[in-house]
């Protein structure tokens, strides 16, 4: 009950259990880095998918696990993107003499930029978390929506952040290694939270706040903590985004972006980390996949391809409607893929008999 991970790594000494998954991930990521070196488009798509996965998994901590409906996640992402982006722009030419090479120094600065972006976003998470103590449901949603828009409007009118033009020329220090490493860290954090006493407190708040309080859960503290953790990872996602796109402007962080993330976690099943991941990957790739399918359908006939391209987004919308009609609880509900998949498989086996 204390630790879900314990039996799985029973042969491993205690001090190694925490960092072990991270150490294991490094060579795999390095391999991915090496394998995709010649495929810039693949890296770009994978990076976008990665950023969306981080956003969805982190928003799921607040919306899914704690049951507080926040729809301003793009605001935290914007904070992280602008802070990290601005930091990298200002320190573009700084070379850390203790590092062996310029590239290594750049990467270290990049990590620092990401952490800085995440930290500042976390501070904003704290500020937005505060009203969540008094507000519930729709009212909280409106406050978070307002926050997201306020951030965007402030950035849009700040000289330092390039107003509506945004920041350009941010050094493109991102790599598939770094993006996926953070994806991994986010998922690890979300899973560790879910299986800890901390996660059970969040769950209790989601299920019944009054009962949770009566049980002795410090609801105030846990709600704010959920917001802070979630905002931190959103900020890091923003920082990563800034460093592989190279150009950011307020248009990237509108309400539409926030809604995109909300759609992902709702489609995946609120409260399900694996659901968020699957939905984020699927919904990010879907428009791209539809694009290439229709280009191929159109063949040489450019006008047909264009015409078909126009119904790409409506199809995306219709798929979402269909999903909500067929599975209103989302793909996995509040469960994880390994809770749900065996049931689906056995049902199929029964059907075949």
């Amino acid at each position, binding site marked *: *009950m204390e630790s879900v991970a314990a039996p799985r790594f029973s042969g491993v000494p205690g001090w190694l259990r925490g960092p072990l998954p991270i150490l294991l991930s490094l060579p795999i990521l390095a391999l991915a880095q090496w394998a995709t070196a010649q495929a810039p488009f693949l890296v770009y798509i994978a990076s976008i998918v990665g950023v969306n996965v981080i956003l969805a998994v982190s928003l799921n901590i607040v919306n899914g696990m704690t049951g507080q409906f926040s729809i301003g996640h793009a605001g935290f992402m914007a904070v992280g993107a602008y802070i990290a982006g601005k930091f990298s722009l200002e320190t573009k030419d700084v070379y850390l003499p203790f590092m062996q090479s310029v590239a290594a120094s750049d990467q270290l600065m990049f990590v620092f930029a990401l952490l800085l972006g995440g930290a500042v976003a976390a501070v904003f998470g704290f500020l937005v978390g505060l009203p969540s103590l008094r507000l519930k449901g729709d009212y909280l949603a409106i406050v978070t929506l307002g926050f997201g828009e306020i951030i965007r409007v402030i950035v849009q009118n700040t000289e330092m952040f390039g107003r509506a033009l945004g920041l350009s020329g941010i050094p493109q220090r991102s790599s598939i290694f770094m993006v996926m490493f953070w994806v991994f860290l986010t998922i690890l954090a979300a899973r560790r939270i879910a299986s800890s*006493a901390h996660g*059970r*407190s969040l*769950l*209790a708040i989601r*299920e*019944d706040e*009054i*009962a*949770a*309080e*009566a*049980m*002795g*859960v*410090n*609801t*105030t503290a846990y709600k704010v903590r959920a917001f802070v953790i979630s905002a931190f990872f959103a900020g890091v996602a923003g920082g990563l985004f800034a460093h592989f796109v190279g150009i950011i402007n307020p248009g990237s962080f509108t309400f539409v972006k926030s809604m995109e993330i909300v759609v992902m976690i709702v489609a995946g099943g609120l409260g399900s980390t694996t659901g968020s991941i699957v939905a984020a990957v699927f919904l990010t790739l879907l428009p791209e996949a539809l694009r290439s399918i229709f280009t191929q359908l159109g063949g040489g006939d450019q006008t047909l391809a264009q015409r078909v391209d126009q119904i790409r987004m409506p199809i995306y919308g219709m798929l979402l409607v269909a999903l909500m009609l067929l599975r209103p609880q989302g793909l996995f509900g*509040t469960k994880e893929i390994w809770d749900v998949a065996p049931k689906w498989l056995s049902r199929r086996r029964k059907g075949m008999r």
Partner: protein
Amino acid sequence: MSGAAVAQETGGVKVLGTRAPREPHLEIQGLRVSYGAIQALRGIDLTVGRAEVVALIGANGAGKTSTLRAVSGMLKPAGGKILLDGRDVTGLKAHQLVPRGMAHAPEGRGIFLNLTVEENLDLGAYRRRDTAEIAKDLEYCFHLFPRIKERRKQMAGTLSGGEQQMLAISRALMSRPKLLLLDEPSLGLAPQVTETIFRTLKEVNERGMSILLVEQNAHLALQLAHYGYVLETGEVVMAGPGRELLESPEVRKAYLGE
């Protein structure tokens, strides 16, 4: 009948009989609670002795639930004092009071409908780390309510009303409280189930737990309670040993329909 004859008036409260002296576990002094401009409690005094069952009876809107919520720290009192084991705990939050040995089973049961019975009970022991003792208490709850044991793997939402109430009480017990606050345990239950629950409360009390019980079913509550208070529009109007309140003409007329 003998004690009821010597009723005395003290500060608007009609006090019947005499109370067996006990060390006070919970003392409420001049407690006031308001919702905006509306005063729900206008300064009530109430004492729960150690290992005593105290019933708080009264009509809808008399302030029974507000009293419990203020005591358990889920509501901030507008005035007055709450002493637990002689220490001032006024204004402390629920999460600070649970470790001090107070458990509140809220009105309408407040159980986690989408969690299993076992998960609900686990959450009751939320503040505790003594795994072996938790297991013991779990067995004790199952002993008190065998029905709960049968349904341990079931979603709490699929339980009947009575089973849900049993679960709510069990869950409160899982924090191993010294003082149990119960809000309307008989609400919406069949008489037979209610009896089971009250029998259990008696058993739990006999093991030394103090209970502050809010109840509309005055008859049952006063039968169980060592001492009772009658609340009317935010004020205590009568107090006395359970038996004597039960036999007093005022209570019989107002709450027992005789």
